[in-house]
């Protein structure tokens, strides 16, 4: 492997010092993406900065009024085991349990996974449904960016050269809500994704509202389809669901991959979405008012 200097960081001030020394510096969370890129010769950093040892990036805080704040260096395995995640953000919990393998989840971090910005990044689907906000930090200051605006497509994000994710914030979940995550992949560990979707909504009296539809594998980034969400607002009838499905099809741009053609990915997404929407409706309607 290409040689570099590995440096453990302990504070954001240290990040700033290293970043100020110019290019050739890369942040590392779990290293699942970064080390592979170095091994393949796609990246050749001089310094690899380990952010997992910065204490504030390992925070996990839940408060019923404030929601859930997770440090960027928290491993994905926490999302598949944490009690507060299981109880209050079940869609995130279920998705995390299916994501990759225990080996990968024990190392991969929330920040590294979001910054990777892959169109098939499964973490994005529940996080988009829960209106996640990313907290970014650079020596120039802090800013908050909603996850749906964080991705720019083709593995790019709004992150600047000298900026990192410190935390993500998930607002408190409404009482009567339900979400499902459905995926079609070639391999059982989630690799080689054809398409996937997360569907979420809440119930307010007799209405099903605040619909969220997130799709993966069918565009250059993980994304929500707000126009289709709007079509489901209220108590969707079969023709509303049909319209929402058509809107989704008009807003995606799947690519051919060696294991699935673009038109097949469309059909698969449609089937998953239809199933997801019906499951959410069924669950919400069977809750007692």
């Amino acid at each position: 492997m290409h040689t570099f200097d590995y440096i453990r960081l302990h504070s954001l001030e240290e990040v700033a010092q290293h970043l100020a020394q110019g290019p050739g510096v890369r942040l590392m969370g779990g290293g699942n993406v970064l080390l592979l890129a170095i091994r393949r010769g796609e990246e050749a950093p001089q310094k690899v900065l380990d952010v997992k040892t910065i204490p504030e990036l390992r925070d996990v805080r839940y408060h019923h009024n404030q929601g859930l704040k997770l440090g960027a260096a928290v491993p994905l395995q926490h999302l598949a085991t944490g009690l507060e995640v299981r109880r209050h953000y079940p869609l995130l919990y279920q998705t995390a349990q299916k994501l990759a393998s225990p080996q990968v989840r024990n190392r991969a971090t929330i920040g590294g996974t979001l910054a990777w910005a892959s169109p098939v990044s499964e973490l994005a689907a529940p996080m988009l449904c829960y209106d996640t906000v990313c907290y970014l930090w650079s020596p120039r200051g802090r800013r908050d960016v909603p996850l749906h605006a964080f991705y720019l497509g083709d593995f790019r994000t709004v992150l600047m050269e000298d900026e990192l994710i410190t935390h993500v914030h998930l607002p408190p979940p409404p009482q009567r809500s339900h979400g499902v995550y459905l995926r079609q992949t070639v391999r059982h560990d989630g690799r080689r994704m054809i398409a996937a979707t997360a569907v979420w909504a809440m119930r307010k009296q007799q209405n099903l509202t605040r619909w969220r539809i997130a799709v993966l594998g069918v565009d250059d980034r993980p994304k929500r389809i707000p126009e289709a969400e709007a079509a489901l607002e209220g108590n969707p009838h079969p023709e509303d669901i049909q319209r929402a499905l058509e809107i989704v099809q008009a807003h995606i741009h799947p690519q051919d991959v060696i294991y699935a053609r673009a038109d097949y990915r469309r059909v698969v997404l449609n089937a998953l979405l239809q199933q997801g929407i019906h499951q959410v409706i069924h669950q919400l309607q069977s809750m007692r008012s």
Partner: protein
Amino acid sequence: MKHAISFILNQEEIQLTVDSHRTLLDVLRDDLGLTGAKQGCDTGECGACSVLLNGVVVNACMVLAPEADGAEILTVEGLADEEELHPLQRSFIDHHGVQCGYCAPGMLIAAKALLNRTSRPHEEEIREALVGNLCRCGAYPDIIKSIQVASRARR
């Protein structure tokens, strides 16, 4: 860059100097002569290099050696207790969990991680725990059976 690191490996303290860019797997196999963990894919996909790092299962090919500083590591060589095989090892032998044997060290470590948190896993939990471990012989049914029997025998 060189790092003087120390860690606990199979209950023994180790001190050595490593380069930044080497992996934990390189150091285990090439410097310490522990060849139980295998170099399969070198991309984190096959699980043949699984070890426990501070009690959780990871792929040693995706961990940098200097990251091991201060950690506690268990490899397949540390499973047996002196003369006596670990119940998982015994069960893999008795129930043909080992065919060609290449994946076995990783399977054993992934199974150990599972039994550390769930003493009596059901089949679905075992399957989920092994999702990151590939067996090219396709001996999965016997591997699952070996783990099931070992977990029942444990207490």
